[in-house]
């Protein structure tokens, strides 16, 4: 195993990676921006290096400063966490060229999967179903209308330069397309300097289901079940669970096999996630590929809880060329786990609300895990995403896990920043969430049903 590991990230994920590194006797090195100096991940590392000011370009996204910190501390390996430089192929290449171990898939695979069109073609060739759509930006409104007729409505009109849920609109017919084509294209030109527009089939009542894969050092690819991440606002996940309720068992097997096949086709190493959309009534469900994330996911803990393994440990072992800590082929999942993303945002409109944390009391007990990036007396700043902590519950059944979640949420106390704990309490009372029939439309439906505040 490697002697030392630099964690090129912050908050809860840096702390979580540092915890595993230290447990394995690996010297853990944190890097941080000036505003993050007081956070738990900095204090809990064996060494810490300040990178610069809060702006990600001057700290967590600054490859030169991170590589310099690695040199100065004699780090053997770099774990990128999620976000920031985790899916940046040229950074991964620089890490390897500096003679360090990159904890992730090869730069070539990151590059291949990072390109939406290449990724889609690659997995389609490996036998995975993909959503019908235009393979490149459409050339004008007339071309869009022709393409739409071939794909079929409803459609998602997407700015090709867009991201993070901006520059997207759903259309149900040609009139809608005419209107939105001009609107999205104009918006994209003003906002991103690129008027390019893509069309893709839209699945209104779909579920977001993703497969966790691990590409082992010996070239084997295994799937560690799937996760349902359909509780979303602004196309961003709020709650994830495994196993996915209401998923046809045959479809699940098919998805897992297709994800493994896609991983094998690209020679995947380390942890990765194949995201899919599942649509159709139970008994007649289908799925299509959405995208592949070539890194550890925020929601990896639900998989860890039901499979009883530490995914970060497996990542480090794979990166070091070692076999996994247990025989993964013999491993069986147990029970049900859910994760709730505790964000610094209001629970009604989900608008961000940073601030100084004056109270922070975490729930504890059997089957309750909290991965937190902050503590009492630390400040949530506007510079980074709003994730403060993840509450993970695990029990023998989904019903028992939901009961555990209810108790844990009631004993979680946060004051200072805005937070979304009340939303989760509301969610637990939502019939379609309790019975597991919910789709990605759930949060929008919940908010449409109550008066605006």
């Amino acid at each position: 195993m490697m002697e030392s590991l630099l964690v090129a990230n912050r908050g809860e994920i840096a702390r979580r990676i540092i915890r595993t590194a230290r447990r394995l006797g690996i010297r853990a090195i944190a890097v941080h921006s000036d505003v993050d100096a007081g956070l738990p991940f900095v204090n809990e590392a064996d060494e810490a290096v300040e990178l610069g000011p809060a702006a990600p370009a001057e700290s967590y996204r600054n490859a030169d400063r991170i590589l310099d910190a690695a040199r100065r501390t004699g780090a053997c390996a770099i774990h990128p966490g999620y976000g920031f430089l985790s899916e940046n192929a040229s950074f991964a290449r620089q890490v390897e060229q500096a003679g360090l171990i990159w904890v992730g898939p090869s730069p070539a695979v990151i590059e291949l999967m990072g390109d939406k069109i290449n990724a889609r073609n690659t997995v389609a060739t490996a036998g995975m179903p993909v959503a019908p759509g235009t393979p490149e930006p459409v050339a004008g409104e007339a071309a869009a209308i022709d393409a739409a007729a071939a794909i079929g409505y409803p459609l998602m009109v997407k700015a090709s330069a867009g991201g993070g849920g901006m520059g997207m609109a759903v259309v149900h017919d040609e009139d809608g397309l005419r209107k939105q084509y001009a609107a999205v294209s104009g918006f994209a030109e003003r906002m991103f300097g690129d008027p390019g527009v893509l069309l893709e089939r839209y699945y209104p009542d779909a579920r977001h289901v993703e497969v966790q894969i691990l590409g082992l050092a010996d070239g084997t690819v295994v799937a560690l079940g799937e996760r349902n991440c359909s509780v979303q606002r602004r196309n961003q996940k709020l709650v994830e669970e495994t196993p996915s309720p209401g998923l046809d068992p045959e479809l699940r097997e098919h998805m897992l096999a297709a994800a493994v096949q896609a991983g094998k086709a690209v020679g995947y190493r380390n942890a990765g996630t194949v995201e899919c959309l599942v649509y159709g009534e139970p008994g007649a469900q289908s799925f299509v590929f959405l995208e592949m994330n070539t890194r550890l996911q925020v929601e990896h803990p639900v998989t860890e809880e039901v499979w009883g393994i530490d995914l970060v440990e497996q990542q480090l072992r794979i990166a070091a060329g070692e076999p996994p800590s247990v025989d993964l082929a013999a491993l069986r999942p147990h029970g049900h786990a859910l994760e709730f993303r505790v964000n610094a945002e209001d629970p009604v409109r989900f608008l961000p609300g940073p601030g100084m944390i004056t109270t922070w009391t975490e729930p504890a007990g059997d089957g309750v895990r909290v991965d937190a990036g902050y503590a009492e007396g630390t400040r949530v700043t506007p510079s980074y995403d709003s994730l403060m902590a993840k509450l993970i519950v695990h029990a023998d059944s989904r019903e028992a896990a939901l009961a555990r979640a209810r108790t844990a949420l009631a004993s979680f106390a946060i004051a200072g920043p805005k937070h979304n704990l009340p939303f989760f309490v509301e969610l637990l009372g939502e019939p379609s969430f309790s019975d597991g029939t919910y789709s990605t439309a759930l949060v929008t439906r919940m908010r449409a049903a109550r008066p605006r505040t």
Partner: protein
Amino acid sequence: MAQQITADIAANVWKVLVSEGSAVAAGDTLVILESMKMELPIEAESAGTVTKLPVSEGDVLDEGDLIVEIT
């Protein structure tokens, strides 16, 4: 009547889409703030002319700071 729009929360100024003297219509996006990786569009509540615009792209705003005044 002047319409003053202030920041609801601590945020960074991501895009400034108008300048002093611009004529704007109700609902026009004037400035886009960014906080916690989320874009927050600031829109004109009513039509008028931009009379004050003390912010520029990259500025860091505290809660309550003036973003734009429309008269």
